[in-house]
């Protein structure tokens, strides 16, 4: 299968849904992907099984401040420099590009990067959703050593970091990013196909495409989306309050949704950071990170980002299970509720919403 220009709108919509409110705006990435396909042709989408064991997979992502990424857009040569650096280090060129984060902007832009490199895109990513920190990836959870980060900035600087662990990787990558003007392209965990097995989340590009297509040409986009995701509908209602506060470098917030129609009388509160992290009703959790929680427009089923939440919006909150990798002890330690500062014991969505999951 290949990804062509006509696939990009659906992929973008799907990535926005998997972004659980974060992951950045998909529009610039979509334009870059369309442009790259026009120039270099459609991008083959391959599975891990298609690659020889020693083939190199490059997980790529943009890193930086959203305000900057909307102004100082990526240059076309950044992926090429990273690929050349990989070839210099490993003695062979990369065989495939992978999205580090399927949710949001970093889910769509890798199509552009793969097209620019003339490489296939691997049908997999490192999160299955969006997360805010560099070490919150499946490769880290799977125990692969975080010992190589390659960054390329817009003017052509290449920085190769050999960190001793994931936390240093995050710290140093962030410092380089700031020096580079708060925006860079990053390859984190260059891995062989053999290493990738069990350390990446497979099928997520196909899934994003299917999720994006679910709402096309249907009279009931919300139902179609919930069924495609296998999601529970936590509430349908009206946003009655959005409160934001900045603490410890993170924007934290709470959104309150009051039920309408069949849900009249119910109130759901969402705890937000960059992403939607915990959904509470009457003080009891109904869904929590790393399970996925997305707010969608009730009418169109289009995903609403956390910064786009406004009083009066008619929304539905959907929640569905994360990849099993995130439910392992290391997965929960990395990206469970406590990793985000919530004093909650993780309970899977299946138990919290017994019998309500669709699909």
């Amino acid at each position, binding site marked *: 299968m290949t990804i062509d220009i006509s696939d990009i709108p659906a992929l973008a919509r799907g990535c926005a849904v998997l972004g659980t409110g974060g992951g950045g705006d998909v529009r*610039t990435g979509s*334009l*870059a992907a*369309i*442009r*790259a396909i026009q120039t270099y042709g459609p991008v083959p989408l391959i599975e891990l099984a298609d690659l020889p064991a020693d083939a190199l997979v490059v997980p790529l992502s943009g890193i*930086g*401040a959203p*305000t*900057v990424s*909307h*102004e*100082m*857009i*990526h*240059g*076309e*040569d950044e992926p090429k420099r990273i690929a050349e650096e990989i070839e210099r280090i490993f003695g062979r060129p990369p065989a495939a590009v992978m999205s580090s984060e399927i949710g949001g902007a970093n889910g769509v832009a890798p199509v*552009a990067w793969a097209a*620019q490199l003339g490489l296939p895109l691997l049908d997999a990513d490192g999160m299955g959703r969006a997360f805010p920190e560099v070490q919150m990836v499946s490769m880290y959870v799977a125990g692969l050593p975080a010992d190589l980060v390659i960054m390329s900035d*817009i*003017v*052509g600087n290449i920085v190769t970091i050999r960190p001793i662990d994931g936390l240093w990787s995050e710290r140093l990558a*962030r410092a380089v*990013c*700031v*020096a580079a*003007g*708060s925006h860079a392209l990053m390859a984190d965990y260059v891995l062989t196909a053999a290493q990738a097995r069990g350390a990446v989340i497979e099928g997520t590009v196909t899934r994003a495409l299917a999720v994006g297509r679910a709402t096309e040409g249907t009279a009931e986009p919300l139902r179609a989306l919930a069924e495609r995701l296998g999601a529970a509908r936590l509430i349908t209602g*009206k946003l*009655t*309050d959005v409160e934001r506060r*900045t603490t410890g*470098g993170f924007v934290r917030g709470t959104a309150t949704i009051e039920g309408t129609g069949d849900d009249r009388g119910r109130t759901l509160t969402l705890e937000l950071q960059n992403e939607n992290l915990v959904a509470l009703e009457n003080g009891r959790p109904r869904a929590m990170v790393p399970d996925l929680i997305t707010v969608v427009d009730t009418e169109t089923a289009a995903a609403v980002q956390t910064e786009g939440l*406004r*009083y*009066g*919006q008619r929304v539905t909150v959907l929640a569905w299970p994360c990849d099993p990798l995130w439910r392992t002890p290391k997965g929960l330690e990395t990206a469970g509720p406590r990793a985000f500062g919530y004093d909650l014991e993780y309970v899977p969505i299946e138990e919290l919403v017994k019998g309500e999951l669709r699909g």
Partner: protein
Amino acid sequence: MAEGALRIGIDVGGTNTDAVVLDAADRVVAKAKRPTTPDVTEGLQAALDAVLADVTAWERITRVMLGTTHATNAILERRNLGRVAVLRLGAPATTAVPPLSDWPDDLRKAVSAGEVIVPGGHYVDGREIGPLDLGAIRRFLDGVRADAVAVTGVFSPASADHERAVEELVRDEYGLPVSVSHEIGSLGLLERENAAVLNAALYGVAAQVTEALVAALAERGLGARPYLAQNDGTLMTVAHAARLPVSTIGSGPANSLRGAAFLSGVRDAIVADVGGTSTDLGVLVGGFPRESAAAVEIGGVLTNFRMPDILAIALGGGTVVRSGGTGVRVGPDSVGYRIAEEALVFGGATSTVTDAAVAGGRVPANAADWRERLEAAARAARAGEAAKPAGTAPYGAGDMSETFSDTLQSALAVADAMVIDAVDRMALGRADRPLVAVGGGAFLLPAEIPGVSGVIRPEHAEVANAVGAAIALASGRVDTISPAGESRAKAIERVKEEAAARAVAAGADPARVEIVDLLEVPLSYLSEPAVRVHVKAAGPLSR
């Protein structure tokens, strides 16, 4: 202003062109409504002549303020657009998404004389991405045939010197008008660039509007100074409009909001402008329109233009009412300007929201006989009904029987629910502000609406948009990035001064310019703490 000075406000809307004359005490002394014509100018002249007929002392008219759709129409119809050489300063950054990537093909073909990304532009912290390559710019311009140039530098709202240098070069060496993005839009490269290119494409249209207005005034022997209304509800001189024609797009909603504030005397309110086809809801904050946070699309092109936050619902006086198997339906279609022939109250055969309102006892001032006319229309329709197969008209059984009045009653309930829902969406949880009802269809609205403290129906509400044009201030705005550390206060003072200077450039009286809006947003991931600052200054027109 001279003793006894008069001024004229004109607003070109989708259906009607409205004009008013205000005296020195801001009283409405004449008003008129004329149909908007396809060429816009004819309708404008008709409305102007209509109000002039009610004024004797033409020599006392000192100013004419015009809010018009010329520029919008030019873009929508791809007509009279100039060819633009599109220059972006930022290479090697931004090459992944070249200029005009998201434009509809036909608009791009009509506008672009060529596009290029050359070295230049700045980082978020003000450092140069690279030195400006003037040689590359000359090579590009030597190879294109353009009517104007649009220049967009990365982070130019914070660091404008590269754009200014290019402007100078183009003017001196090529003699072409230049649209510089930092004067036009805020942060967000692609959207600002789109607005700058549209602006450059509209120079010809701006000249036509100015000429048409100046000629119309001269033909009538008026010595009045002309101004154009812009999208934020403020005015600019025609000289300023010639530089920033894209700002005239979308002045209608802003004018009606400002007019509503003025006529009602309320500075914080929700405003509903009820027309023939739709109702536009907006919010007044301190007398100015609340601005939209979302990007605004013009002719299929996304811009980061500051526009009033408007919620339009498909409900107006001409909105069609139908009854069928599934109950009563209201709209979304409308008989539009044909309401004067087609609505039941006007002897027509189509049930409209106007008819529903009249049946519910809501009539405009001086229209007490509408209820009787509705009943007469219903009787006539019933008489004709026997001779003709049922179901030909949207509402078939035309009598004032129970079914008939039930249908209109249900339709009014549906219409009210639409308004209540829209008001709730705009109210952002505050219930302490009134709703000001303006526009020709203001009488359709119920007397009480949940979520607002009351419904105000000011006099002259039907021409609020033209009043808004006539009373508008001149303004200037700056959207940039400033350090958040010790130098913050000084930096913000400088931004305020720049905004005030821009207001004066647009025509404001330097002695009476005030800062009317100041917004600071902290930025993340930067080496030095910084804030994004947005400042707007406004003041009355200088004498």
